[in-house]
């Protein structure tokens, strides 16, 4: 059966099912006020510090108050400098993440699904994983120069290991009983991978990708500190050298916002793929 015919077939089943039992009318979900709980703690701390500086309990020289940090952020944004740094950092994380995650997915899938490949690859990769990532920096600079390639390579290394480990572990922990269902229906290796293994590993794979993305943001700081002329990491170093803690904190806040946004984007984009999961979320 061709791919197109297959897609048609599956949609027909869904249509038949929909005819047999039309889904319940869409409900408007009420606004989740609990979402705002996450803002409570940082807002209280920020207000308290602002008040402490405002009323003279603290100088705010080394830890500037939020108003000064946001003024710095606004000024950087107004001159366009902030966007230059943000876009440079984001681009490095994106390229490093795509490269590292792709390699992690491919090698993780090979290692998880073939014992021979696992015996061949895994010991070496586990040994490489034990090396502190910063230790690669001098080598990468020697091999790839001081420009973008070495930075992207460092980020890719950071992303690679959690993704590789997550994918390998997820494949190895797929329920044997579900694989037997595929065997009973005589699925080919390819169909077994597509219809059983891939959906079964998806939840764990997504967690691995999230870990990889988080590490990507950690490693971009290291990469940009080791020598860059733009990027939020550069802003950190620049703030230190110029004695501008407001610049440093502005860069840190920008990192926090970007990291959270990127993670939320990944979660949001992949949520429809795992909506079938029977989890305790919502009951705890």
């Amino acid at each position, binding site marked *: 059966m061709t791919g197109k015919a297959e897609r048609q077939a599956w949609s027909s089943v*869904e249509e038949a099912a929909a005819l*047999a039992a039309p889904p319940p009318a869409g409900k408007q979900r009420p606004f989740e006020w609990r979402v705002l709980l996450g803002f409570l703690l940082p807002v209280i701390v920020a207000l308290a510090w602002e008040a402490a500086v405002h009323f003279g309990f603290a100088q705010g020289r080394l830890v500037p108050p939020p108003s000064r940090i946001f003024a710095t952020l606004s000024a950087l944004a107004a001159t366009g400098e902030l966007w230059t740094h943000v876009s440079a950092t984001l681009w490095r994380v994106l390229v490093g993440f795509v490269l590292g995650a792709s390699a992690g997915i491919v090698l993780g899938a090979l290692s998880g699904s073939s014992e021979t490949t696992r015996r061949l690859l895994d010991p070496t990769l586990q040994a490489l994983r034990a090396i502190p990532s910063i230790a690669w920096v001098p080598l990468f600079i020697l091999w790839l120069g001081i420009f973008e390639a070495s930075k992207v390579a460092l980020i890719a290394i950071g992303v690679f290991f959690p993704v590789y480990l997550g994918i390998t572990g997820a494949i190895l922990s797929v329920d044997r009983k579900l694989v037997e269902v595929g065997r009973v229906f005589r699925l080919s290796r390819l169909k077994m991978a597509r219809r059983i293994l891939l959906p079964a590993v*998806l939840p764990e794979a997504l967690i691995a990708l999230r870990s990889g993305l988080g590490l990507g943001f950690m490693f971009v700081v290291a990469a940009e500190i080791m020598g860059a002329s733009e990027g939020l990491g550069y802003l950190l170093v620049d703030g230190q050298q110029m004695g501008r803690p407001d610049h440093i904190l502005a860069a840190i806040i920008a990192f926090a916002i970007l990291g959270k946004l990127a993670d939320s984007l990944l979660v949001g984009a992949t949520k429809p793929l795992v909506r079938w999961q029977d989890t305790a979320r919502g009951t705890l």
Partner: protein
Amino acid sequence: MLNLAHLSKVYADGTRALSDINLAVRESEIVGLIGGSGCGKTTLLRLIAGLDTASQGQISLDGEIITEPHPAIGIVFQEPRLLPWLTVSDNVAFGLDQVAPAERAARVAHALDKIGLAEHATRWPRDLSGGQQQRVAIARVFVANPKVLLLDEPFSALDAFTRASLHEHLLGLWEETRPTVVLVTHDVQEAVTLADRAIVMQPKPGRIFDELPLGIARPRDRSSLPFESAVRRVMGALDHSLNTVQTSPQRERDREAAGLWW
């Protein structure tokens, strides 16, 4: 005809699970395999399903040797084993890749209607009760129109009421295409309710102890004399098989599992 000839299974650790099993199951016959723990019932079913390979002997279906999963043989496991990422209807359609879309949709809709779950077609397996999930698992096998249906204690985890209801659903589906059925069960009542013939097995190593044709017309009335007489005969054979080989505590557990109260 499903034919098992001199079938033996020895595991890698040396455990002899089955020894010299010979059994011929006629077309459309329902055979109930019953016996104590460890007598190789599930092993035998897995061999017929092609999920494991026999150490000796052979299995044939209409003359064709079976060594791996075969399109004409379907199995329902003890657990429903539904794929949690597929809706109920997609689970039922899982084995119908090669069937034309229109026919596939019709078969799925018919099977769901037959098991009383048409209104649950778009739900996830997590939204169903254990009994409903097992009904979907049965429907998934039946829509593929197998010539041989293997049932590995599919109702053992369910309460008596749900079990009785599932027996009716199963027989309703079976009446349509009348496949050959091999049912593994611990429950003598269940074997007599569903089977045409009871095969009593004995452990260490697993082998056939006795074969009892039940000869009761369908639909079966559980309170009728022929039914009660058949239950007594199977229980007698089972008790005899347990008496012959087992030590007391294990025997008591098996008697309990088989519903023997004396």
